[in-house]
C-alpha cells in the first residue's frame, strides 16, 4: 500500500503536490473544527458541573476561562452526600452488573446450542431469535408491568433485571452463535472423540476461545443497561431507581439546578466513559457484529 502510494506521488508534478498539500491542510482544518464542535457539549457539561450554583444561575460555563475562581468540587461533594443519588448509583450497578452477567451466560449457552448442536427445528428457532432482535421494548411495557405486578416484583430491582435480560438475549444469542460457529470444527470433534460431554466442550473449548466475542457482548450490554432510562422509569420506584431516573426527576425544576443536573449527568457518564476508553475495540466489534436494537 505505502509503496504504491509513494510511486504514485513520485509521478506527480510539483503543481499537483502543492494542490495535494493544500487540500490536506484544508481537510485538517475542517476536521479540527468538527472535532471542536463535537467536544464542546461534553466539555461544557464537565465545566458546568464544576461551578458554584450561584455562578451557574447567572452566567454560562465559558466564563470559567475568564474567572477560574468559580470552579469548585462542591457539587460533587453535595451529590455524594445525597442519599438519593448515592442510592441510585448503587442501584445502577446492581442492575447493570447482574444483567450483563446473566445475558452473557444464558446467551452463550443458547449460542452454543445453535452453533454446534443438531436438533429438530433449530433453524426455525434461530430465525425466531433474529426476528426478535428488532422488537421494540414498547411492546412489552404494558403486559410486563401487569405481570410483574401480579407476581409482586413490579418496582423491584429483580423485575428490571429480568426485563433487560430478556431484551438483551436475542442480540446476545445472535452475536455469540455467529462467533462460536467460527471455532474450527476439528477442535470440537477431537474433544467429542475424547468422550467430552457438551457441557465440558462448552466450558473448556468454546468459552475460552469465545472470550473476545463475550467481552464485546458484555461491554455492549453493560453500557446499554447502564444508560437505560425508559425501562427503569416504569419498572422501578424511589427505592430501586437507577441514576438516570434520579437525575431526570431533577429536570422538572430545570434552570434553578443546573449545578445538580450537570454534576449528576456527568457522574452517570463517568463509568461508561471509562469502560468506553478502556475497551472501545470490543465495543466496536459488538457494533460491527450487527446492532439492530
Amino acid at each position, binding site marked *: 500500500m505505502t509503496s*504504491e502510494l509513494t510511486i504514485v506521488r513520485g509521478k506527480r508534478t510539483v503543481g499537483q503536490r502543492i494542490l495535494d498539500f493544500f487540500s490536506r491542510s484544508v481537510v485538517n482544518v475542517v476536521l479540527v473544527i468538527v472535532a471542536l464542535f463535537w467536544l464542546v457539549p461534553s466539555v461544557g457539561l464537565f465545566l458546568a458541573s464544576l461551578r458554584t450554583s450561584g455562578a451557574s444561575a447567572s452566567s454560562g460555563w465559558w466564563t470559567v476561562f475568564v474567572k477560574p475562581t468559580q470552579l469548585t468540587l462542591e457539587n460533587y461533594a453535595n451529590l455524594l452526600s445525597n442519599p438519593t443519588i448515592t442510592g441510585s448509583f448503587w442501584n445502577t450497578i446492581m442492575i447493570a452488573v447482574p444483567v450483563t452477567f446473566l445475558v452473557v451466560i444464558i446467551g452463550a449457552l443458547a449460542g452454543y446450542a445453535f452453533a454446534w448442536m443438531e436438533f429438530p427445528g433449530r433453524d426455525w428457532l434461530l430465525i425466531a431469535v433474529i426476528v426478535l432482535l428488532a422488537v421494540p421494548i414498547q411492546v412489552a*411495557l404494558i403486559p410486563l408491568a401487569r405481570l410483574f405486578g401480579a407476581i409482586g416484583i413490579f418496582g423491584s430491582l429483580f423485575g428490571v433485571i429480568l426485563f433487560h435480560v430478556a431484551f438483551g438475549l436475542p442480540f446476545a444469542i445472535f452475536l455469540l452463535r455467529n462467533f462460536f460457529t467460527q471455532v474450527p470444527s476439528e477442535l470440537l470433534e477431537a474433544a467429542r472423540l475424547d468422550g467430552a460431554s457438551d457441557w465440558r466442550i462448552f466450558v473448556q473449548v468454546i468459552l475460552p476461545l469465545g472470550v473476545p466475542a463475550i467481552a464485546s457482548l458484555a461491554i455492549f450490554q453493560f453500557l446499554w443497561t447502564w444508560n437505560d432510562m425508559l425501562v427503569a422509569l416504569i419498572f422501578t420506584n424511589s427505592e430501586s431507581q437507577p441514576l438516570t431516573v434520579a437525575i431526570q426527576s431533577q429536570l422538572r425544576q430545570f434552570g434553578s439546578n443546573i449545578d445538580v443536573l450537570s454534576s449528576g449527568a456527568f457522574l452517570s457518564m463517568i463509568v461508561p466513559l471509562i469502560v468506553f476508553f478502556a475497551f472501545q475495540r470490543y*465495543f466496536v466489534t459488538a457494533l460491527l457484529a450487527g446492532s*439492530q436494537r
Partner: protein
Amino acid sequence: MTDSAVAPVGMDRGEGGEGRPSHGASRRRTFFIALGFLAPALVLLGALLLYPIVYTVIRSFFSADGGQFTGFDNYVTMFTNDSTFTAIRNNIIWVIVAPIACTVLGLIFAVLLDKIKWSTAFKLIIFMPMAISMLAAGVIFRTMFQENPNLGVVNAALVGINSVFGDDAAYPGANVRPKTGLAGEHGIIRSEQAIETGGEMNFPLVGIRPDTVPEAAKPAEQAQSADADQITGTVWLDFVKGGGGVNGEIGANKPGLPGVRVDAVAEDGTIAGHAQTDDTGRYVIDGLKQGSYTVALPAANFDEGYQGVSWLSSTFITGVVILSYIWIWAGFAMVMIASGLSAMDRSLQEAARMDGANEWQVFRRITAPLLSPVIIVVFVTLIINVLKIFDLVYVIPPGASKPAANVIAVEMWRVSFGGGSNQGLGSALAILLLLLVLPSMIINVKRFREERQR
C-alpha cells in the same frame, strides 16, 4: 489425533455423523441436552417477549380500562387524536432527517479520516457520545440551547457574532431627564423643538442600567461648536452613582454613551442626515442643508438588542432534539463505514488515480459503490433506532414545547403510564411501532439466509 480423527473432519458439525451411533435413543438424548442449553433463553424469551407481543396485540383492541372490546377504535384514535397525530408526524420527520444526516456525516468523516494523521483521536472524539446515556446527552443539549444568552452557549455565540457585525449599542430602558427640552414617545427620544443647522442638541438620558454602558465609554465631553451644515451634541448617562453633579449637565465623570444613532429629521419627516456617537458620547451630523431639524434618537437604540433564537420553543424543538441525536449517532455511522473502508482493496482506486481520475470521480465511481452494503446496514440500523427514539425527546423539551416535540414512543409512555392511563391506545401505539420495524425484521432474516447459503 490418530486416524480415527480423520473421519469426522468431513462430517457435518454436531450430531448425526457416522462417527456416533444415531439410534432414536441417542437422538432423543441430544435433543434433551440441547434443550438444557436452550431452556433458560427459551423460557425468558417466551415469557417476556413472545407472551407480551400477543398480549399487546389483543389489548390494543380493547378500551382504556380493558373492559370492552372496541375493534379498531384505538387505531382510528391514533390518527385522529391531535397529540398522537403530531407524534406520528414528528416520527416521520425524524425517520427522514436523522438517518440521512448521520449517514452522510459518517461517510464524509470516514472518507476524510484517511487524509489526517490524528485519525484515531478524531474517531474517539466523534464516537465518544455513543458511550454516554441519552439522558446525559439530553441534559447537555437542553443546557446548550437555553434561550438566555448568558446561560446557553449557542445563543451566547450568536449574540457574540451579532455584536461583532452590528455596531449599534443597545441601551434598554433609556428615558429623558424632565425639563431638558427632550420628549420621549414610542421608544423614540427627540428634541422638543426643531434645531437650526449650526446648533447644538444635548441628550442627558436616565433609566439606563449602568451595566449596559459599554466598557469603552469615556466621560462625556461637550461637543465642538457646529459648522453651518452641522448639528452637534452629546448623549450621556445623566446619573452619578451615589449622587453628585448637576442634573442635565455634563461633568462629574458622567459616562458618554457610545454607538447611539442620532437622526436629523426634516420637517417633512424624512431623515436628512444621521451620525453615531463616539466614546465620549459626542456626535456630529454634517452635510445638512440650511434649515431646522428635529434631532431624534431612534427606538433601535433602546430595544433589548439581538437576544438569539428561542431554540427550545415549539418551532425549533424537534430540530434541536434531532441535532442531539446526530451528535450521538454520526460516530456510529463513521466507525461502521470506516471499517468497511479499511477492509476494502484499494488497488482499484489507485489504478483510477493513475489514469488521471480526480478524487471526486474516484469516490463516486469506485469507493461509494463498494461501500454501499455497509451504508445500507448503517442506514437500516439508524431507521430502526430512530423509530423507537424516546429518551432525548423525553428529556430535552421544556414543558411548553413537549407537545410539539412528541414522538410515538414518548406518546406511548404518556398515554399508558405518564398520567394518560389508556392502555388500549398505548398498546395500539406499541403495535404501530412493531409494524414499523417489521420490514427491517424481514431484511434481517433475508440477510441471514443469504449468508447461510454462501
